[in-house]
């Protein structure tokens, strides 16, 4: 911690001292007004969603959009959601959980292992490996969706869980992140001392390395989880069996049907309550996850 730069001698006390000074209540008032207006902009759509999921279709179009209806239909909407097409919505929830959990755990482990070797060892293809990681970082995954589809198709994995999960295990951002993190968080001597104690290189990584880099692992795990939970383009291309859809894809299909003639009863209440339920876990966990995610983003912001 005591490495370099004056910024590290700064304590929070000094910051508070800096923040004190002449109070200017007019400026404070104006600034607070601005800050609150922006907060409203970020919160209103979410509040609207909260209100709208308690309405039936008639209320949705006939009551003030930001006011709760006189009679809440939350229970009825929830029952309809759970019974519609045999409760397929909950199947989608389960699918999203499966995709996100397996992908984030798998991608984090694979990235950590590769990042560890590239950061800690000298080997013949080290330069090539680093270039491959950086090069892959520079091609956003969306541009690779059709090529990946063709690959998955030739492997015969269209419409399978594996088909969706496997391509997402390739996470160059994760490797880059772990490379940088491990390079600094782990002392080289660790490998030597581990060897003296009779451990092999794998044992050193799994028993000494992994516990040491746990904060980095958790950060990467959370970032990967959020991005998998939110993924849409890849499953859209790889799946056409609605039993395998994640939430994002299922809700999109319902939305697309709203404007299709002859698609049956419009599913407004289902889409709204479904959308709310799909972000609810994130909203609840967010204050807890935030510090990890933010530090990961700030550290890895070489890539969006």
């Amino acid at each position, binding site marked *: *911690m005591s*490495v*370099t730069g*004056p*910024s590290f001698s700064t304590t929070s006390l000094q910051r508070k001292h*800096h923040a004190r*000074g002449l109070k200017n209540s007019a*400026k404070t008032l104006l*600034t*607070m007004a*601005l800050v609150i207006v922006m*907060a409203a902009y*970020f*919160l209103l*759509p979410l509040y609207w969603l909260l209100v709208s999921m308690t309405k039936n279709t008639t209320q949705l179009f006939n009551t003030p959009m930001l006011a709760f209806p006189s009679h809440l239909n939350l229970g009825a909407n929830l029952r309809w959601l759970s019974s519609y097409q045999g409760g397929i919505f909950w199947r989608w929830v389960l699918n999203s959980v499966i995709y996100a959990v397996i992908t984030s755990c798998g991608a984090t482990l*694979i990235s950590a292992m*590769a990042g*560890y*070797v590239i950061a800690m*060892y*000298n*080997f013949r293809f080290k330069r090539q*490996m680093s270039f491959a990681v950086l090069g*892959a970082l*520079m091609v*956003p995954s969306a*541009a690779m*969706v059709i*090529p*990946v589809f*063709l690959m998955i198709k*030739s492997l015969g994995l269209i419409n399978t869980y594996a088909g969706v999960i496997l391509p997402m295990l390739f996470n160059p951002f994760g490797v880059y992140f772990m490379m940088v*993190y491990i*390079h*600094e968080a782990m002392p080289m001597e660790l490998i030597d001392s581990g060897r003296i104690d009779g451990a092999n*290189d*794998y044992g050193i*990584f799994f028993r000494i390395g992994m516990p040491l880099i746990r904060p980095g692992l958790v950060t990467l795990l959370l970032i990967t989880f*959020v991005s998998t939970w*939110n993924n*849409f*383009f890849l499953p859209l*291309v790889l799946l056409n069996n609605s039993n395998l859809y994640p939430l994002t894809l299922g*809700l*999109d299909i319902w*939305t697309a049907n*709203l*404007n299709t003639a002859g698609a049956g009863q419009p599913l407004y209440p289902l889409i709204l309550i479904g*959308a709310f339920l*799909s*972000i609810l876990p*994130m909203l609840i966990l967010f*204050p807890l996850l935030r510090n990890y*995610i*933010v*530090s990961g*983003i*700030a550290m890895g*912001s070489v890539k*969006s």
Partner: protein
Amino acid sequence: MKRTHRRVPYGLLAPFALVFLLFFAFPFLYSLYLSFFVNSGGTNHFIGLRNYGVAWQDTNFWYALFRVVYYGVVQVAIMLVLALALALLLDSRFVKSKAVFRIVYFLPYAVPGVIAAIMWGFLYSPQLDPILAVFKLFTGGNPVNILANGHVLYGIVNMAIWEWTGYNMTIYFASLTSIPIELYDAAKIDGCNESQVALHIKLPLLRPTIIMTVVLSIIGSLQLFNEPFILSSMTSIPWNYTPNMEIYNMAFAYGNFTYSATLSIILSVITFIASLLFMYATSDERKTKKVRLHRRMAKGQAGNHASEVRAEGGEVV
């Protein structure tokens, strides 16, 4: 410095090497290969570079590319000003409960782009007539339909601003927290007020971070797909509105995988070149600094994770 270890655990590298080959290198090469063929009657016929000739004259593809670049510039300009302003405001002494606002601004990051698009799609729909009433003040009482052709791009701009402003603000804020306090004290002695400090000290020091977020956001917008795709069911957005939409529909609506692969290759290469240019333009002076900063950050993270990183993380560019 780093010693060469005789035994290298290649087994730890193997899974990544495998997924790299299977889901990056092979797909790219296979698409490149496919792009030299045309499919007729179920069999592929070699046609050399003719797909690239077609793509070169595919005015819609280039127009779609131009559209997403324009979209990126507009969206990034507005988002950047907002994110900067919010970061500077939250870093000033005029704001109370900063932690709460930081969470609120960052919250949309947790909402999937698809859900955001569905939400805003509803909010834009004239049937629900929501905030649109405000716009009527400017149009003499005429209803405004954001989902109509001329406006829908700006509707998507607003969605992206809603989703990513807090994200970028968070990066700027992290950067600001790492500015040494001595600078502020010196400025105070020189008689600077708060806004002068913001304009003449904080803003210039944020410059590298700003450049990075601008270019990354524009590169990201080249890939625009989710939002216009979701909206296409509510609007008259055409099948080839953005490059990725044309690529998707070329494959799945028209079954022309070889041409779709060609366009994928072109888009990947364009993005790759844009990223390289960006790295080249921003790296020279900071190459050494970057390494040092990474080192400091990682040390901080290994210790008290969250708070240290908030203080140091933003420096990394």
